[in-house]
C-alpha cells in the first residue's frame, strides 16, 4: 500500500539524570549545593525518615497505630523534594512522603496522630499553609494547580516574590484524569508549579508495565507542553538537582515542570498490604542493591566524610528524637467526641445543634458511668 509523505511537526526526547551510581560512585562532578554538610544532612534525614517509618510499622503491628504507608527505599525523593522548597512555597503531598514531611517541619507526632486516627495530625503547626496528606489518588495535583494560581495571583496583585506549589504522587496517579487535567492547566496558564512523581514501580499490586504503555512517565508531561526530566530517584543529588532546577524555573515565571524519580517500593503498599502475594522475593532482593541510603553512605565514606563512629552518634541522636516524639504523641489528650462538629463549618449552623447536644450528653453520661 502506498505510504503518503508526512511532514514532521514536533519531536521530543526524555533525558535521565544521575550523579551517584548504584555503587555510590560519582558519575559526574557533583553540583555546588552538594557540600559535605548538605550531603551528611541528607544522610541524616533519610535515616530519620526510615526510622520513623520503621517505628510506625511496628506500632501498627502491635495494634497501636492504624494503617501506615511506609516510604522504605524511597527516602531520597521525599527528603530532596522537601529540602528544595523555601518556607513560603506550598507543598501538596500524597501520602508516601515521610522525608518531605520532616523537611517541611511536620512533627513526627503529627504524622503518628494522622495515621493513628486523629485529625489533629493534619493541623501542621510548622507548615500552616501546606495542604494536608491526600489519600485519594492524584486529586492533590489539581489542588496544587489551584494553589499555584493563588501564588501567581498574589505575585501579580501585590508584587511579592513568586512562590511555587509542589505536588507529589506515585506513578499510578499518572494514569488518572486529574493528573492530565492539572498538567494541562499548569502548562496553558504557565503556573509556578512542580510535579514530582515517585515511580516506585508498583501501585499496590499493579506493576509499572501494566499501568501505562509509555516508555517513561516523564514523557506524559510533553503532551501538556511541560518540560520533564527523569532522574535516578535513589540518587538524592540527582533528585535535589532536578527539583531545585524546576523550582528555579517556576520561580522565575517560566512555568511548570515534571520530574519522574525512578525508585523502588521496598515495603508493602501499606501495613494493610502483603506484597509477597504479587511480587517475587528475587525482585525485592535485587532492588535492595540500589537503595538510596546505602548509596550515599558508601559515597560519603569513600570521601572520608562518614565513619562508623559518626554513624553511631547519629543513630543515638535520631533514637532520642524518635523517643521524644513518641512520648509527645502518646501523652496527647484525646479530642472530645464533639470535636467532629467543631470544624465542620466555620460556625456550626443551628440545624446541627440537636445532634451536637445529643452527642455531648451521651458523652457526659458515659463519663458518669
Amino acid at each position, binding site marked *: 500500500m502506498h505510504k503518503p509523505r508526512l511532514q514532521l511537526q514536533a519531536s521530543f526526547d526524555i533525558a535521565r539524570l544521575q550523579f551517584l551510581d548504584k555503587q555510590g560512585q560519582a558519575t559526574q562532578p557533583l553540583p555546588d549545593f552538594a557540600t559535605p554538610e548538605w550531603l551528611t544532612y541528607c544522610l541524616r534525614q533519610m535515616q530519620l525518615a526510615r526510622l520513623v517509618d520503621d517505628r510506625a510499622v511496628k506500632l501498627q503491628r502491635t495494634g497501636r497505630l492504624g494503617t501506615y504507608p511506609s516510604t522504605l527505599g524511597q527516602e531520597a525523593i521525599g527528603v530532596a523534594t522537601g529540602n528544595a522548597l523555601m518556607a513560603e512555597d506550598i507543598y501538596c503531598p500524597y501520602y508516601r512522603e515521610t522525608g518531605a514531611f520532616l523537611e517541611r517541619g511536620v512533627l513526627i507526632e503529627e504524622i503518628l496522630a494522622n495515621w493513628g486516627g486523629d485529625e489533629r495530625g493534619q493541623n501542621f503547626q510548622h507548615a500552616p499553609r501546606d*495542604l*494536608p496528606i491526600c489519600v485519594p489518588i492524584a486529586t492533590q495535583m489539581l489542588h496544587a494547580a489551584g494553589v499555584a494560581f493563588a501564588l501567581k495571583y498574589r505575585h501579580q496583585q501585590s508584587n511579592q516574590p513568586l512562590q511555587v506549589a509542589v505536588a507529589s504522587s506515585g506513578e499510578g496517579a499518572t494514569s488518572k484524569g486529574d493528573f492530565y487535567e492539572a498538567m494541562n492547566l499548569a502548562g496553558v496558564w504557565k503556573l509556578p508549579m512542580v510535579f514530582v512523581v515517585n515511580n516506585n514501580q508498583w501501585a499496590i499490586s499493579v506493576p509499572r508495565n501494566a499501568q501505562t504503555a509509555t516508555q517513561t512517565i516523564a514523557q506524559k508531561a510533553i503532551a501538556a507542553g511541560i518540560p520533564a526530566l527523569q532522574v535516578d530517584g535513589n540518587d538524592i543529588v540527582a533528585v535535589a538537582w532536578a527539583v531545585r532546577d524546576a523550582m528555579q524555573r517556576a520561580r522565575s515565571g517560566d512555568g511548570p515542570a515534571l520530574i519522574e524519580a525512578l525508585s523502588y517500593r521496598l515495603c508493602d503498599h501499606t501495613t494493610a498490604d502483603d506484597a509477597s502475594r504479587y511480587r517475587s522475593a528475587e525482585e525485592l532482593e535485587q532492588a535492595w542493591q540500589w537503595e538510596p541510603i546505602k548509596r550515599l553512605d558508601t559515597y560519603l565514606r569513600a570521601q572520608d566524610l562518614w565513619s562508623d563512629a559518626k554513624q553511631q552518634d547519629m543513630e543515638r541522636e535520631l533514637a532520642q528524637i524518635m523517643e521524644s516524639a513518641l512520648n509527645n504523641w502518646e501523652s496527647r489528650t484525646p479530642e472530645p467526641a464533639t470535636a467532629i462538629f467543631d*470544624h465542620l463549618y466555620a460556625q456550626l449552623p443551628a440545624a446541627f445543634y440537636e445532634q451536637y447536644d445529643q452527642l455531648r450528653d451521651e458523652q457526659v453520661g458515659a463519663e458518669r458511668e
Partner: protein
Amino acid sequence: MSEQAQTEQELKPITLVEAVTQALAYALKNDPEVVVFGQDIGANGGVFRATDGLQKTFGADRVLDTPLAETMIAGIAVGMATQGLRPVAEFQFMGFIYPGLDHILSHAARMRNRTRGRLSCPIVYRAPYGGGIHAPEHHSESTEALFAHIPGLRVVVPSSPARAYGLLLAAIADPDPVLFLEPKRIYRAAKQPVPDNGEALPLDAAFVLREGTDLTLIAWGASVRETLAAAEQLASEGIEAEVIDPATLKPLDIHSIIDSLEKTRRCVVVHEAARFAGLGAEIAAQIQEYAFDLLDAPVQRVTGYDTVMPYYQLENTYLPGVERILAGARAALGYSREGER
C-alpha cells in the same frame, strides 16, 4: 421623595440571571480575593450570559476562561481557597458537575475538618440546574439531594432576582463551600428591581413567600412559580396556603417550616427532582420527628417521577405543574383520620 425612594423608582427591573451578574460584579469590585472562572465565561459571558461583561470590566486575570475539564474546575477551586482566595467556579450545567464531585465531596467540604481548622474552602460552585428549557440530554436534571447529603457543604437555590443577588453575595462571603444552584427555567421569567447595595441575605434561613393558615406549600427554585400559582388558585377557592422557600437546602431551616405547621397542620413538598430519597423525604421525616402531633394529614410529596429525566418532548410531563401541586394540596386538605369523618 427621599433619595433612596427615588433611586428605587429609577432602578431598572432585572431578571434572575442579571441579578447573578450584578452580584458577581459587586463581589469582584469589593473583594480583591474573588476570582471567577469556568468554561466560556470570559468574552462569551457564559452560555446563559451570567458573567456577561465581567471579564471586560475586571480583567482576564480575575475572570478566567478555563480549559474544558470539570474535574479541574472543581479541584483548582480547592487549592485557590486554601490560600485565601474566594473562587467562584461555574459549571456550565449541573449535568456536567459530576466529574468534579470528588473534589467537592472529598476535599472542599472536608478541608476545614480534616485540618482541624487550619485550612478552609470558601468556594462557590455555581451551576444552572433543572428542566424546562428544551435542552439536550443531561442538561435538565435536579440532583440537589446528592449534594445536600454531603457534610460540610451548603446547598443554596434562589427563586427570584432579589434572592439570587442577596444569596449569591452571602454564598461568596461565606467561609465554607457553597453549591449555588441557579434555576435556569426562571433565569428570565420575571423581573424586579434589585438595588446593587451589596446586602447579603441570610443563609440557612427559609423565606415565607406567601402567608396562609390552611396549608403549607414548600418549594424551591423554579418550582416556586407553579407553587405560588397553585396557591393563588386555592385562594380563589377560599383556601389560604402559606408558601415557604427554604432557599438553603443544606443546612435546612426546619424551624420555619414547623412554625408554619403550627398554623396550617397540613403540608405539601414540591420538587422537580425524583422522589426517592429526594429532599421531600428529608423534610417529611423531620416534620414527623419534630411535629408529629401537629399534623392533621400525612405530608404530601409532589415531585418528578423516579425515572430518568426525559428528553424535552416529555419534560413538562415530568415536571410537577400547577395541576399536580393542586392535587397534592387537595389530598392534604381532604385527609381525615379514621373515626374523625
